[in-house]
């Protein structure tokens, strides 16, 4: 439990209203979007500015109290569950767009701004910020940076890390550090900006970010291609890329997902298809038309059973809805939905999907797969029930094997959700023991007392997913 002296110091920094340790607040900050994880913090603090964050970190350091910074808590890796207690720092009050620089095409924002709010503001100015995590209506830019979020446009436009060019952060000691800036070129020293992106709150608390903006595409076209043969769909993905076409979006749904989505959204999708690809291209009018025509040809060459091209925005939206409702539809099947994030080189998509289906069968669990085929990022999603302990163990064993397969195929254990708590046991599989050692040294350099989001990223020893019951 927190000493009264510590509470008094924290209240002194932010004011009585913005430090809370009543049971209601503790319960409502004991979880994030990850199923089956919960642990109460000892207090929750809502800073208003960088100076307050700095002062708070000094108190945390002095008393060696863990601090977990978070935005809306939508992450799916247990990244913001306070597993070792301590203080949860909610960044919602730091939500200003500090500047949009129309000369340099950059925006400087505070971390607590909701991604969608930011995107709408930027689009209102005739500019484009491409990262579009599915949680963008809820998640914050700070959270996106901490987890290095992706989305449907990752293939052509890259993910969060490709748009963050400068950061202000508060170190564990309370010192304030700035990295990068508005400049497009900067190789002075180690790239600390990139290092902090995706560091999941384990290295520093991000308090400000400078983001790169680009001009928006002028034209857009959307199509669906349906395949009775999984390899046909997979070859199409490879062939599109081989033909030097990079679509804005190239999404995949497997047969079980198609069935569920269709049942839920009544879209009239053919149920005998092994896979559906959702493809969107944007850019100059002629380029888009030429690319979509060529992609259609490729789909035909790979024996797509049906191809439909949206003739207008409304139809395009209907096609996108099919893909976007995948999570919603799957979540309605069973009480507990575990959405994972295995990623492979895009030439291995078909093999990976087949392995996932084999593994699901082996462990007798239901796993539906959809995801960002174009960048090899799949979301095998288990629909299960947390109360069925036997089944949960089989689900965990299945995912362990799925990650093993992903790595065997040259892939990784997460493409856009982060390592957090749930994938910490598998990180070493991907980065090796030397990788882990160097990462731990970096962590030690930033946070010698191990007070920033402790227990995340690095597992003690277990290879198993950690399921923590209530306190």
């Amino acid at each position, binding site marked *: 439990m927190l000493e009264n002296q510590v509470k008094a110091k924290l209240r002194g920094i932010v004011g009585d209203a913005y430090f809370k340790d009543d049971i209601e607040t503790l319960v409502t900050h004991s979880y994030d*979007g990850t199923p089956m994880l919960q642990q109460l913090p000892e207090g929750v603090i809502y800073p208003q500015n960088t100076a307050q964050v700095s002062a708070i970190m000094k108190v945390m350091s002095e008393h060696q109290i863990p601090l977990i910074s978070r935005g809306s808590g939508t992450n799916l890796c247990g990244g913001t569950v306070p597993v070792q207690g301590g203080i949860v720092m909610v960044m919602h009050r730091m939500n200003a767009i500090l500047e949009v620089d129309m000369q340099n095409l950059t925006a400087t924002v505070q971390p607590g701004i909701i991604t969608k709010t930011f995107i709408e503001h930027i689009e209102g100015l005739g500019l484009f910020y491409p990262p579009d995590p599915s949680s963008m209506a809820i998640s914050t830019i700070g959270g996106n940076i901490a987890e290095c979020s992706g989305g449907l446009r990752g293939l052509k436009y890259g993910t969060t890390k490709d748009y963050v060019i400068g950061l202000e952060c508060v170190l564990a000691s309370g010192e304030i550090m700035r990295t990068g800036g508005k400049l497009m070129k900067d190789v002075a020293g180690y790239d600390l900006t990139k290092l902090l992106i995706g560091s999941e709150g384990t290295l520093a608390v991000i308090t400000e970010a400078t983001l790169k903006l680009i001009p928006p595409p002028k034209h857009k076209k959307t199509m669906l291609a349906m395949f009775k043969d999984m390899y046909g769909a997979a070859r199409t993905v490879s062939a599109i890329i081989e033909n030097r076409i990079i679509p804005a979006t190239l999404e995949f749904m497997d047969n079980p997902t198609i069935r569920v989505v269709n049942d839920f959204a009544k879209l009239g999708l053919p149920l005998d298809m092994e896979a559906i690809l959702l493809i969107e291209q944007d850019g100059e009018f002629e380029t888009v038309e030429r690319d979509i025509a060529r992609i259609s040809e490729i789909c035909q060459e790979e024996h797509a059973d049906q191809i439909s091209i949206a003739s207008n925005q409304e139809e395009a939206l209907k096609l996108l809805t099919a893909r976007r409702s995948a999570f919603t539809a799957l979540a309605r099947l069973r009480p507990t939905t575990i959405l994972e994030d295995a990623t492979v080189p895009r030439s291995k998509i078909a093999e990976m999907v087949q392995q996932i289906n084999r593994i699901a069968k082996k462990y007798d669990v239901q796993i539906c797969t959809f995801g960002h085929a174009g960048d090899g990022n799949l979301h095998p999603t288990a629909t299960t029930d947390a109360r069925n302990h036997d089944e949960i163990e089989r689900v965990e064993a299945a995912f362990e094997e799925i990650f093993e397969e992903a790595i065997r195929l040259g892939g990784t254990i997460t493409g856009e959700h982060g390592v957090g708590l749930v994938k910490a046991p598998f990180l070493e599989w991907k980065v090796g023991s030397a990788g882990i050692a160097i990462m731990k040294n970096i962590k030690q350099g930033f946070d010698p007392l191990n007070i920033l989001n402790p227990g995340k990223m690095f597992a003690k020893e277990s290879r198993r997913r950690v399921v923590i019951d209530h306190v």
Partner: protein
Amino acid sequence: MSNATAKSLQESLKLKLDYDQLTNCMRCGFCLPACPTFKETGVEAESPRGRISLMKAAVDGIMEPNVRFEEQMGHCLGCRACEPACPADVKYGQLIEQARDAIEDHTTQHRTWVKGVRKIVFGQLFPHQNRMKLLGKGLRFYQKSGAQTLARKTGVVGLFSKQMSAMERILPEAAGKGVVDQLGTRVPAIGEKVGTVGMFRGCLMDVLFTETNRKTVQLLAKAGFDVVIPEAQNCCGALHAHSGEMDQAKQLARHNIRAFQEAGVDYIVSNAGGCGAILVEYDHLLHDDAQWQEQAKWFASRVKDISTILLEKGRPLPFTEGPGVRITYQDSCHLRNVMKAGESPRKLLKQMPGATFVEMKDAGSCCGSAGIYNLTQPDMANTILDHKMDHAKATEAHYIVTSNPGCLLQMKLGIDKHAPGSPMQAVHIVDFLYERV
């Protein structure tokens, strides 16, 4: 709160809360941006995800439900905007009602006046249409006799809570005579008959908005329906259910089901989103009542909002070209989120010759009226209304059209507060349509 009270509340929550639904919440947070109280405060506990986690923590024994727990459950508007946003289809509306039901059994927290008002209003007033009528007559007397003028001049009105006196200013003229007194219990279709509908007159609607009820019947007749208004019907029970008075809500539901079954109707028409939403869920309300299940399903499957039935089942109304006005629409939360009929009123309004429909920003988010929420939680209700009126004013509309008496009064209150002297008016969709047929 004493430990014993907390313990007994905890036991009651264990009994009443649907644990499957608590488990179904996967805490993805999709509900957060849909929730008006979260939008206002940014506090996790003020969100559906937060409230469900509190309910679950109370049931799981992680926390004892304390005063703050009760207050938090009271803070929810019950607008159910979180339900369409929820990927897992968690029945949040049922959970919050179950929690309030448990709290109602055990609380020692209500301020005395809330308790007193509830007891009288829920137990003695709403279930009895004749008493509601009497109330209407009393109100009419107050408004017509000069008492209102006197009360306002002498400042007696100010003795009510600030919120009550603000409401007093915007109450419409009560009719004193309900729709049955005016039209009888049967009104035949005009022209060729397309079906028979039962009119749900509502209790507040029939006292404060009798004209709207009368016009509803006449619009239905013009659209080709024989309209029956069963006299035996009573209050829908929505306010009871939302406040945790479940047994009373069920009693009222059974009574209404019987009244409409005896009337032999094809559809049951409601012109109040708040009533319609519970009517359409009578099957859920009575799901553990084996004896009534079938009848409840019969009833629920026949309930339609006035806009939907005019649009989908009736003969098209011959709208005449009206004056060139701008109109905007404030959703009734329950019509949109529970009856899933937010599109029907918009489609009708867009058909209106001469009128320009302007969509208001965040039209689908609650206006803060929420049953008696604006009386029990005035601070939050007023903050929500302030933001709503900013959006309403930005449309520069002449009419804010609504589909529910609570929303209508709240919009009137909003105009009175934020746009006094402006040509903006709040109007029920039925009244607006009727003027133009």
